């Protein structure tokens, strides 16, 4: 048998979770090569934890996409992350900006 084919079959049968995790991550950034795809698909069939990881990666991507967009809408005010400090923050900012403009 062709060495290359043999190598691919071996890879399909012996892919480990850490290699699979790496492929799943790469898949978020570029399409995998065919043999990589086969190996990963086979691994996902037999590995419950990797299936979970794969679902979670996709979920994270969709959460981040939403969060990344959420500041751009004119009325959206995402949390200041330090509730209760909003007023002090804004006062400080206004003051500093005034000072800066005055020194121009």
């Amino acid at each position: 048998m062709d060495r290359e084919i043999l190598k691919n079959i071996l890879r399909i049968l012996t892919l480990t979770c850490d290699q699979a995790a790496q492929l799943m991550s790469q898949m978020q950034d570029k399409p995998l090569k065919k043999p990589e795809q086969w190996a990963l698909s086979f691994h996902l069939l037999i590995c419950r934890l990797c299936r979970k990881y794969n679902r979670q990666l996709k979920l994270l991507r969709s959460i981040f996409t939403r969060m990344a967009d959420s500041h751009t809408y004119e009325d959206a005010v995402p949390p200041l992350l330090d509730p209760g400090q909003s007023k002090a923050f804004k006062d400080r900012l206004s003051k500093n900006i005034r000072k800066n403009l005055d020194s121009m």
Partner: protein
Amino acid sequence: MSNPDESVKNARHNIDKLVSRHAEALYSYALMRVQKKDLAEDMVQETLLAALKSWEKFAGDSSERTWLIGILRHKILDFFRQHHDREQMDDETWRAEYFDRKRHWKDKMVNWKTNPAALAENNEFWKILQDCLKELSQVMAKAFVMRELEGLSSEQVCKHLEISQTNLWVRLHRARLQLRRCLEINWFA
């Protein structure tokens, strides 16, 4: 409008309005990306200053918010480029953190029951995510923020940070593993 005194006067007039409308959103945008409060606040201040100084250039063909985010985004990406640190990450130590000797998962992995839309609006979740991002090393955080939050392509990130594709993938892979674990422990479990 060509009189500089005049435009400074106009700018002063706009300060409170701009601050109250946008400062919080700009701050949380910056903080999510640079993970340091002082730095985030400085960036917001610089952004608003830059906006006030060039107020006449704001054409109004985009929203104020979009315009301001554009300026801020520029500052963040500049910061990322200027401070690129080359951190060596030992392969084996790192792998042993997540995988056992048979290369199986060490983590249990609970089921994440969630709705992404609701989560993105949940203040508590934002805080947890922010804490988790803060835990990442600078090297990982930058790559991750540019790719996932700024939505740049992997080619763009590589070019901006002057790193190879392989290097980027390693960074992203590790960042994802670490974030997954952190979010699971602090939120989903």
